Each structure stands twice: as C-alpha cells, then as structure tokens.
C-alpha cells in the first residue's frame, strides 16, 4: 500500500477544506450525485407510485387479475390459446404509467412498483453493509496496527482466513445456513427472512479488503516520530489514536466508502440472484432479476430493467469514488488540474 504522507504539516489550510473545494469543482461528483439523488428519490417515491398512481400492491399475488387497456379487458397472466395451449405469459410493458408500466411478473405483480420498492432494499442493504465493512475494518485496522503484538497476530490471522475464503463461496455458505436457521447475536435474533442477514454477511466478507490496508497504514504511522513522541510523553492511547492516527487514515477510509457501497450492492444482487439474498415476497433488484430469469424468453424486460438500475447506480457510486479519491489524494489526480 502506498503510504499517505501526512499532509497537515505541509499545507496551511486544512486538508479537509481543500478536498471539499476540489470535490465541488469536479464535474464527476455533480453528475454522479445527481444520478444517485434521482435514484434515492425514486426509491422514496415507491409507496406513492404503488398506492396512488398504479393502485397496486407489489407484494400480493394477483394471478387472476384483469385490466382494461384501450377499451379491451386483458388478463394479467394470459394462458396460451394457440397450438397445444401450453404455458401462461404475464402481460408485457404497457408503457402506461397507471397500470403495469413495465408489465407483470410471474405472480401478476406490477414490475415497475416492485422495481421501485426493490431499490429501497438494494440501496439500504448496499449502504448498511458497506458502512459496516468500513466501520469494522477501521476498528480492526486501528486496534491491530496500534496494539501490535499478539492482538495484531490474532486479528491478522482472522483476516487471513476470511481473505482466503473466496468471497462468493463464503457468502453463499453463510447464506445457505443462515437462511435456514436465522441468526442469533446475543439477545438479537434475526429470522430467516430478515434483511439483517444479507447485510451481516456482505458486511463481514469484505472486511479484509479494507482492514488490511488500514492496518498497514496505522502500523507505519505507529513507527513515525510524532506518534513515538506522543507515546513517550505519556499521552493516553485514545488521545494518540483519535488525535494523531485517525485523521491520517481518514482519507483512505473516505475513498473506500462509495466503492464499498457499490461493491456491497453488486454482491447483494448476486446473492439474491442465486436466491440466497433478500427473501420473497420482498424485492431487491437482484430478486427481480432472479424472478425475471424465469421469464427471460417471453418477458426479458423483467430481468433487464433491474440490471440496468444496478449498473447505473454502481457506476454513479464508482464515479463519485473516483472524484473523492482525486480530491483527497492529489498524487493520483487526473491531469488537467
């Protein structure tokens, strides 16, 4: 890992302010933030859309429902009447904002309404899991790097084990178990369908990726004169950690935030795609893709729409991540500044 030079000694103006100003000047941050803002607004708008505009319950099966479109009554799930009459096909996109804008899924539910509700779960899980990863990694990195010795040895070995366990394998094994049994952490008990399960799993599997570089930085910092001096003068450990070390590792941590959220989101959707993430009838973009796979040949839109949402959101987060990194770490800043 490249060592982050302590910038505070060099610049007279606080580095935070410089970074913020750089970020505000960066086109990329405005583009990505407006995309993210729109998606969050749409997510908040979900109940409004479902109950007022489309007047539908995205979590109730309506297999025998009918709608009136252009004066004709059509079944939401239309049994085939030609040939041998095999199969039942859900209604496709009507492009009518009031009913089945993007068509129906296999349960006769409104895909558009589910997509909006799904964005809530996906964003929530992605953000929570990403933040859990960052917070736990910061804690582990600080403790291991600062205390060194056996504490570091134990923590590092645990990180090694998680690291060596391929992410999807670990996530899948944990999901399979927890989905059957639920999870008990002390007095907290999460049922098998709880959103806390994917959050915990995703939050844990990525810890080594963030904790290791942080530990490395803290370890290097611990050797530096100003920290040694502080220890020598008998300053309290907490003071040293919070006053001297934390401000110096913060830039790296901040850069990780949007990237980890994007990564957690992608992982959530992959787990849901393998039907071990968010559990039905709740929706997330991954579960809608999973539902849509069963309709890929007849109604590809069901799987395509949530996929595009994932790409858009992840791309916006990554773009913002780039802008943040360049603002905080002038060394890697793109040319033209």
């Amino acid at each position, binding site marked *: 890992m490249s060592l982050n030079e302590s910038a505070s000694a060099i610049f007279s103006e606080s580095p935070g302010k410089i970074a913020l100003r750089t970020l505000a000047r960066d086109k990329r941050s405005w583009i990505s933030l407006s995309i993210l803002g729109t998606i969050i607004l749409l997510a908040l708008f979900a109940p409004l859309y479902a109950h007022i505009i489309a007047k539908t319950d995205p979590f109730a*099966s309506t*297999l025998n429902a009918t709608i009136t479109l252009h004066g004709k009554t059509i079944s939401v799930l239309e049994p*085939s009447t030609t040939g041998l*009459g*095999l199969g*039942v096909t859900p209604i496709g996109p009507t492009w009518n904002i009031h009913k089945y804008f993007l068509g129906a899924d296999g349960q006769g539910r409104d895909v558009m309404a589910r997509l909006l509700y799904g964005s809530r779960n996906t964003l929530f899980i992605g953000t929570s899991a990403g933040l859990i990863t960052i917070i736990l990694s910061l804690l582990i990195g600080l403790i291991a790097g600062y205390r060194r010795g056996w504490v570091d040895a134990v923590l590092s070995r645990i990180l090694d084990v998680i690291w060596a366990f391929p992410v999807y394998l670990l996530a899948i094994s944990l999901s399979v178990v927890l989905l059957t049994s639920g999870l008990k952490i002390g007095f907290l008990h999460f049922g098998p369908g709880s959103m806390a399960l994917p959050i915990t799993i995703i939050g844990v599997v990525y810890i080594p990726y963030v904790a290791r570089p942080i530990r490395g930085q803290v370890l290097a910092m611990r050797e530096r004169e100003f920290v040694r001096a502080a220890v020598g003068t008998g300053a309290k450990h907490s003071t040293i950690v919070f006053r001297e070390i934390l401000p110096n590792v913060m830039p790296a941590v901040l850069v990780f935030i949007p990237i980890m959220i994007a990564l957690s989101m992608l992982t959530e959707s992959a787990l849901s795609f393998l*039907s071990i993430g968010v559990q039905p009838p709740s929706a997330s973009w991954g579960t809608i893709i999973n539902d849509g796979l069963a309709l890929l040949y007849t109604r590809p839109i069901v799987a395509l729409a949530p996929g595009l949402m994932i790409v858009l959101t992840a791309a916006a987060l990554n773009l913002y991540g780039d802008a943040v990194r360049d603002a905080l770490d002038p060394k890697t800043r793109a040319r033209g500044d």
Partner: protein
Amino acid sequence: MRRSLIIKSLLTAGALALSVVASSTSSAAGTGMVPFDSAKAGGTLKLVAQAAAGTLDPKVNYTGQFWQLYQATYDGLLGFKYADGAGSFEIVPDLATALPVQSNGGKTLTFTLRSGIKFSNGAPVTVADVKASFERIFKVSSPTAGSFYNGIVGAPACLTKPATCKLDKGVVVNAAKNSVVINLVAPDEAILSKLAVPHAAINPASSPAKDAGTAPIPTTGPYMFKSYDPNKLLVMVRNPFFKEWSHDAQPAAYSDEIDYQFGLTPTAQVTAVENNQANWVYDPIPADRLNEIGTKYATQAHVNPLTAMWYLPMNVNIAPFNNVKARQAVNYALDRAAMVKIFGGSQLAAPVCSFLPPNFPGHVDYCGYTKGATPTKPAKAWAAPDLALAKKLVKDSGTAGQAVAVVVSDDDVNKQMGVYVQSVLNSIGYKATVKPISANIQFTYIQNTKNKVQISVSQWYQDYPAASDFLNVLLGCASFTPNSDASINMSGYCNKAFDAKMQKTLALAVTDKTAADKSWGQLDQEVMADAPVAVAFTPKQLDFISTGTKNYHFSLQFKMFVSQLQTK
C-alpha cells in the same frame, strides 16, 4: 433447482395394498409394443438432464430418473409390461417363465427361472444369483428393505444385521429344477408389484455387498452401462448377450447407444432439443418456454396424465393448524386455478381437492372446499375459492394474526407456489412469510418435527394404482415418527379411529378389491373433512423430443420407454 422435482418423482415406498392387474397373457387392457423392426435400429440417443440421480446401483437408487433406465437394463423375476397408458400397470413374467404359483394361503410363491439368459458379462443367470439378489437388498440397506421386503421369512434378522444376511428359509432355490420358492410370513397382495420393481432385480451373485455407487453392475436387458460420471455423462451400450425372450417384459431396443448428459440448465436443454443437439429433455420444461413448445414445436410435445398431486401438508400438532377451522380455511382460500397457472396452465394440470387423484382406484369426483360447498355437502368439482368463508373460519378459530411460515423448495415453480400461498395466507388474516430452502433438503426438512414446519408445499407421485399408496402412506400413524427426517406423514396426522379403518380396508383389499376401493373413496372424504392437508392440483407429464426422434411411447409406471425411441 429443478432437482427437487427429480427427488419428488422418487417412486413411492411403503405401499402395502398394491392392487395389480395380473395376467399371464397380453390379452388384458393396453396393447403391447408392435414387433421389433430391425430396419429402424441403430444410432445414438442423446438424453439431457440438469443433474444425475446419484448411485447407479439398482438395489439402492430410488429415483424416477434412473428407474426409467433400469427398465431397459435390469430384470426381475417379474416386470411391468411394455404398453401404453394403463396397460403398463400389468405385471408380466420376466426372468421367470410364468407368474408364480401361489400356495399355502398366498404365503408361498413358486417360480421357474428361464434358462439360457446371460448377464452382460457373459455369465449365465442362475437361481443362486436370484437368492443372492434378495439377500443383497438387505446387505446394501436398500431404501425399501424395511418397507417392501420385510415380509420375506428371515427378513427381520437381515434388517438388524445386514452384513450376515441369509434368506435360506425365505428364498429357497433348487438349481436342478431351476426353481425359486419365496416364503412370506403373511400373505401380501402387493408382493407381485414389489417383485417387479428394480430393487428386486436379479444381479450377479458376485455383486459387491455394499452400494456399488458409480461402478456399473452387469445387466440382463438390451442395454448395459458402460461408464458413469455423475457430473457429466452416463453411457449405455448394447448388451452383447441380450436376446429378446419376452416382447412384453423386455423387448429389443432400437438405439445402439444412449448418452445421458448432465449439467445443462433446463432452458439450455430445451434449446438443445430444438436445435437437434439432443433427443429428449429430462427436467420439467421452464415456464417461459412452454408457449413456444406448444406452438412452434407442437408435434414434438407429448402430454400425458400422471396420477400424482401437489399438496400442502399442514402440521396438525402446532399452531395455528392444530385447529381444524384454520386448516379448512386454507382449503377454502386456495385458488387452485391460480396455482395451475403457475404450473403452466390448464393443459398441464387440473385443480382438485380430493386426496386420491382422478382416474385412480377409489377416486370419487368431489370437492368439499369450493364456493358453495362444505365437506359434508361437497360439490362435484372445484370451481372457485371462498375467501369470505375462509376469513370467517380464521376469525372463528381464534388464530387470526398468528405468524405462519410456508416452507418451499427454492426452485422456480415451488418458490412461486410458496409466494402465492403466502399471499393467500396474508389475505385471510395471518402474518405469513415464505421460507424457500434448498430443494435438496426441503423434502426431509419438512418431515422432521424438530424443524416445527407449520405448512409446506410438497408433491406425491404414485407408482402403483393403489389408494393405500396415498392415504395409508401419507396419513397413517405408522408413517409418523417424531424427530426423524424420515416421517413421510408431514402433517403429523395420527387419527386412531381413521387408522383402524384404513387397516381394515387393507385387509379387505386382499379378498375384495372393489369393496376396498369403495371404502378408500369414503375414507378420502372422511379425512379431508378433517383437512390435514390442502390438495391443490394434479400435474401432467410433458415430454419434449427432437424432430428426428420417433416411436414415443408412455408408460404410467416408468414414463417414456427409453429403449423404444428410434433415432433413425
């Protein structure tokens, strides 16, 4: 995954009163195959499936997927006839020269073994192989050892100590006369069926005393297994020592080789057959390909009825379904037409609410849980759900607002069913969740009382037309073992009075089948008034074959006849 459906089509065990159309000639219902036409023989038949069905050992494997192949490879003393439809339930002599002579009040069965038949390794089939084969059922802990063959004299000792199993008194053979005598502890009217299934096939005496796993055991039929890799490919080639001895029991086969490929998703399998890269799809056809097959490929699709049911067992021992009103409410609330839609439409399934499927011995057309009907005043058929009545029943039962989890397999169709049932339960006043778990453990998971499953979605496929195979197996006290993964009575329903009536009917079946079937029909209505389960629909089998594949025939017993398909 679709594998659940493979496991669901495991053939049923524990059938006690199997009624059998026994006849020594082919004059009974159902016509046999037309004579073998050597001009159409040859070529390689390519079958595709998502997954293999486990061990290849015919004494251990208990899946519909491989039993279909065993019909063209292994033979017992008796066999099921090669005939279309119901004719395939007829039992015909196979390695025996004729159906057995029954004496001693039905407790002694005497067979004569055909001579001149050889195993695929060239060794002749002898009476010593017959005796060893019956002992091997116990030595390898065959799944049906305790339920099918426990009536043979000496079997209890074999069940407790499989390693030293000897059936000297149960299977008495005489090499000079080429005779086999099977002695039973008590008469068993289902014994002929039990002797005709693959677990009673005759294998060389030298076969290993443990599950042979992936190592093929020599066969007697037109094919033998050449190689088996459960992740890739099963190859069957012609048995060089096979000569047709009975066209009804084991006719000559058409293709020179059968390649059974594993690992493709169902949708990729369908594409492969459409593009003529494979001859037949094993797995259920994915919902979004059905329309295409029904229109563009209609001539290559074959739909056949199955005597089977999709149903919802409800645990009668824990809340809320320990309350009969709650169970009846579910029965009233289920929109069976909606579930049929999920399954693929009215051409592939039909709504029912009786326990015994249509066209089944004992079946009576009735539905106690449709709009305007009650269990005591049933309608003729299911028409529409009665949500208002269901809500009222839930309210009256005092269980409204309780949490209910629906446990389903995580493959597409089952998960969809689970989501639908959850939606229904919510609409009648419960707080329902759906819990999809791996298709491979769901079936045993919902059986074990330790897992406290309240309601689930499951399937039951018959293999003999016998009412007891449904009622006695699924709702009998003997099938309920608390804290065990093997407790097929998932509702945990043990009604002593009802059980006694079933035992009486079983005994009646030995002497008077017609009266017994009538009694089963009454028991069906009686138990459904108590609603330990909700029956949803009866499915049909859809086989999809490639354009060049000819001579499709369907047996109710083992489904499509693999050996009769022509690729030339």
